[in-house]
């Protein structure tokens, strides 16, 4: 029961709906106490526009995640943008080959900051299950651009992609740098050990 309570509190505090701040009621209404950085990160995390970018079968699962049955608009990934200038997050849905790498790099460079990257599926994280022995495939998109969240699977189900997007939201809301996140991970590990 305690675990259940803990998980539910954790979900509440990390859910997209949880607003970072406290409301102190007063006779005329209320006073909101918060940090402006937290509010900005909260707003950013709930309005992530993905770039239309799919290079293999993972793109089919990504389209499924966007369509009515899974409907990622519920979490704020409202509109997939066909131009990098208007996109916040790039979901690398598929194999990146040597010829595609410069294109991916350019798309990433054209995106406005802050920008985030999700490596979806085996090809984007490691080169993929079929392509370990070929001349044409990049062994992981993180050789080309930095990746925030990796999703396992070949291809991952839409649920897995939505979980990755929610993980990204939590990451944004924490507002930490990559080094700080790494340090936090080490501390968590030491606590367990």
């Amino acid at each position, binding site marked *: 029961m305690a675990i259940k309570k803990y998980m539910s509190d954790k979900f509440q505090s990390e859910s997209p709906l949880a607003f970072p701040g406290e409301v102190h009621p007063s006779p005329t209404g209320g006073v909101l106490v918060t940090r402006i950085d937290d509010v900005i990160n909260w707003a950013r995390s709930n309005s992530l526009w993905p770039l239309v970018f799919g290079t293999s079968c993972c793109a089919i699962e990504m389209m499924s995640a966007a369509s009515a049955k899974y409907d990622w608009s519920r979490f704020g990934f409202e509109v997939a943008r066909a131009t990098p200038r208007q996109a916040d997050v790039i979901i690398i849905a598929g194999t990146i080959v040597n010829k595609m790498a410069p294109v991916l790099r350019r798309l990433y460079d054209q995106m406005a900051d802050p920008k985030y990257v999700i490596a979806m599926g085996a090809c984007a994280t490691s080169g993929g299950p079929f392509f*370990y*022995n*070929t*001349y*044409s*495939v990049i062994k992981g998109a993180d050789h080309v651009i930095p990746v925030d969240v990796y999703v396992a699977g070949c291809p991952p189900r839409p649920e897995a992609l939505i979980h990755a997007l929610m993980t990204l939201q939590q990451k944004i809301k924490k507002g930490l740098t990559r080094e700080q996140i790494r340090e936090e991970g080490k501390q968590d590990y030491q606590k367990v050990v």
Partner: protein
Amino acid sequence: MIKEELKIKLTELFPSATIEDGEWLNMNLAVGDFLSAMEVLRNKPELNFDYLFCETCVDWKTHLTMVYHMDSTQYRHQLVVKVKLDRVKPEIETVSHIWRTAEFHEREVYELFGVNFLNHPDLRLLILPDGWEGKNPLRKDFEDPVNMIKL
């Protein structure tokens, strides 16, 4: 034409070829007879193979095999033509003047297997970027120490 009729017809027309049954009829030709036979297959009114829907190559380590899949949109019969090539110096006549689609199929086979198509109008790399001339990545003995793991 049904497969049995086609088989009889082809045996009459090309006595030097060997014909095997399969999902499709397979006809093995020698490099020497190849071009004239292909012209007959395309132009003979009762055969009328007007659609070359696949042209590719197979590396058997000892030799290469060119494979041509063709179809007649009028009679709805299909045929596979196979030609054995020497692996060291693979050369074959182009069929791009018979079926225009062969032009880029042959460019693909040229870049991936290194087959030299004689009299091809524009034999250069199709998809691979510059600098891949002569490397032939779909050959079985192709090695790439950077990208490939040697098993």
